[in-house]
């Protein structure tokens, strides 16, 4: 039975080999090719090019530049999808919380062993430091708000799994409300940043666009590309910073919701009325 399964898996690999041989032998041309598409060349030429000051992002990181500047709208709505997913989860879990009942618990008795707990204590600040570095250097090196934020979410996740959800909620006071507040802070930051240049333009009476970062040929304003000689790439720094908060808080919220004991959910759901 088990052996048969492995045989099936390997025959799949053999199938892939055959497929590849067939495709190759038909002489389908050079794959992959050392050339690249025209649109990609545009991105690569303009992502950091001081010689075309009104058509550049001033960030050496082309991917972050596309994500938050060229196609910033996509990312705003991607953030919104994540936000809506969490709101949907909150709507399903509405009323099911772990707000009281922490007094009689021996919180120390839950969780994994002493060694694991001690290591986690040491690990948490290190993880946050490293992930903040990933997020804040998002416009210079690979990484960015989402990458940093999801790496930072390891810290609360580890605390939650290793110490127990009671520890997180009653000792560390990471409640639903505080996470929603932090998340709203991040989201509103993203929102404000995306409108920053437009509002600036309206105030001083110059043409400007939503999601505008650097000056453009027909819209001459933009945020500063560098501060004190260090690149911050205008809006990219702020986007990464706020996204970091939003994502880290979002994941923490999800795991706090997921780790609520099932007993609580059943208490709330029992005999609940529903609409039509």
């Amino acid at each position, binding site marked *: 039975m088990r052996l048969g399964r*492995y045989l099936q898996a390997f025959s799949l690999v053999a199938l892939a080999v055959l497929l590849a041989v067939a495709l190759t032998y038909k002489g389908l041309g050079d794959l992959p090719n050392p050339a690249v598409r025209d649109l990609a060349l545009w991105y690569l030429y303009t992502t950091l090019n001081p010689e075309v000051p009104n058509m550049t992002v001033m960030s050496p990181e082309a991917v972050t530049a596309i994500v938050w500047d060229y196609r910033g709208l996509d990312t705003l709505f991607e953030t919104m999808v994540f936000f809506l997913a969490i709101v949907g989860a909150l709507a399903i879990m509405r009323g099911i919380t772990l707000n009281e009942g922490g007094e009689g618990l021996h919180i120390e008795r*839950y*969780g*994994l062993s002493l060694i*694991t707990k001690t290591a986690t204590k040491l690990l948490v600040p290190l*993880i946050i430091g*490293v992930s903040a570095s*990933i997020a804040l250097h998002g416009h210079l*090196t*690979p*990484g960015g708000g989402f*990458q940093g934020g999801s*790496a930072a979410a*390891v810290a609360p*996740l*580890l605390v*939650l*799994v*290793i110490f*127990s*959800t*009671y520890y997180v909620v009653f000792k560390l006071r990471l409640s639903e409300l505080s996470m929603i507040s932090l998340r709203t802070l991040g989201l509103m930051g993203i929102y404000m940043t995306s409108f920053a240049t437009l509002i600036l333009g309206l105030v001083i009476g110059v043409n400007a666009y939503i999601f505008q970062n650097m000056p453009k040929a027909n819209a001459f304003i933009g945020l500063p590309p560098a501060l004190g000689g260090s690149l911050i790439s205008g809006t990219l720094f702020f986007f990464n910073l706020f996204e970091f908060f939003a994502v880290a808080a979002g994941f923490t919220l999800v795991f706090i919701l*997921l*780790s*609520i*004991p*099932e007993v609580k959910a059943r208490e709330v759901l029992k005999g609940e009325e529903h609409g039509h």
Partner: protein
Amino acid sequence: MDENVLLNMILYALPVYLLAFLLYVVRAVKGPTIPDMVLAVDALSYDLAAFLAILAVVFKIPILIPVAIVLALWIYALDIYVAKYLESKEMGE
């Protein structure tokens, strides 16, 4: 010594890593128990983290390095919640 000689030596070490990975994968797929599989994935991924760092040297692309640290971090998390899964009644306790 010339740097190219050193890079060549590293290059010849890479297939050895590949072999080791395949052995780990055999263990990870075979099991027989869940801790066995997780341990194999675990060892595989830590070595993979090191391997990816080495590849970054070979390719001469330093900016690939953060991948290693993130991989190591999350594989540790995988360990922890498998352990938690096996040990506890609810994941939150």
